[in-house]
């Protein structure tokens, strides 16, 4: 029985000679190494539990590249509605480009097609630097087509940013 590291080294040094006898002249070193998998499983389990807890089934929004949403502290986490995205050069209604002249008609079609809950709200996305005179026509079109509520997409403002 090996009692100390020195004995283990001498054992390993002696091992080739021992094996040489067994393998008929072929000297092979058997390197025994053990990998502790229990620690790895512990780490993985903790990471999975953390990700499960922090994952939330919130609203899935398709935010266009370059669009920076404004921040807000008082907001509702989920909302269903017709998505309108206001970009610098165009307006997207449910992902489809639409002109401002056709917006009222298209919104009325959306209102007629969707279910009762969804068709009462517009989900509006725009960059935080967008001037209000570009947003105003969309709000006016929403009112003209009968949508009572307009919801503005925002990012949660952390208290540290105050």
């Amino acid at each position, binding site marked *: 029985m090996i009692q100390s590291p020195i004995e283990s080294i001498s054992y390993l040094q002696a091992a080739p000679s021992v094996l040489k006898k067994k393998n008929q002249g072929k000297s092979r070193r058997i390197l025994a190494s053990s990998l502790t998998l229990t620690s790895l499983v512990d780490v993985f389990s903790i990471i999975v539990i953390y990700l499960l807890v922090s*994952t939330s089934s919130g609203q899935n929004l398709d935010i266009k590249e370059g669009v920076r949403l404004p921040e807000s502290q*008082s907001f509702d986490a989920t909302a269903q509605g017709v998505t309108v995205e206001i970009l610098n050069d165009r307006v997207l209604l449910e992902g489809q480009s639409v002109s401002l002249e056709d917006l009222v008609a298209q919104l009325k079609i959306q209102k007629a097609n969707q279910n009762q809950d969804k068709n009462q709200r517009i989900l509006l996305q725009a960059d935080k630097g967008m001037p209000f005179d570009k947003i105003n026509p969309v709000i006016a079109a929403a009112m003209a087509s009968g949508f009572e509520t307009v919801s503005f*997409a925002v990012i949660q403002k952390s208290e540290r940013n105050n």
Partner: protein
Amino acid sequence: MSKKRKPDFEVDLLPVIAVLAICISFLLLNAVWVQLGFVQVKQAMGNAGNPKDNPPSVWITIEKSGDIQVQIKDLAKRVGFPAQMQLSARNGAADTQSLGGVSAQIKTKFPDIQMAMILPSGTTSYETVIAVMDEMKKAQFTNVGIAPL
């Protein structure tokens, strides 16, 4: 005589690690790092009633310079509080922090006022409008609206 086999107590951890690695990959791809939400504004669809029946409300006008004008309208008794206040812009931007303080004062003095109407100018940024709406909602005004240009 056959020898009894010793029971093997070793647990094969490789499948467990494989499953956990797949779970972590899936959860990392679907993790939400930024919380999205919505600020709701209920728009008035038209008021054909008597103007005298309008509920008391606070009107916030955001001017092109960034100055904010706060007016209390349709309030029968407004004792000890100015009808109109002007909040100057700070560093070229609207002073939403001072607006929050004024809104809280108005709400404390006149708790019956639930409606706040925001009148931005054409050049007011979307961020400023949201910040003003945020301050009014924090001051417990339940009915916040935006007036079209």
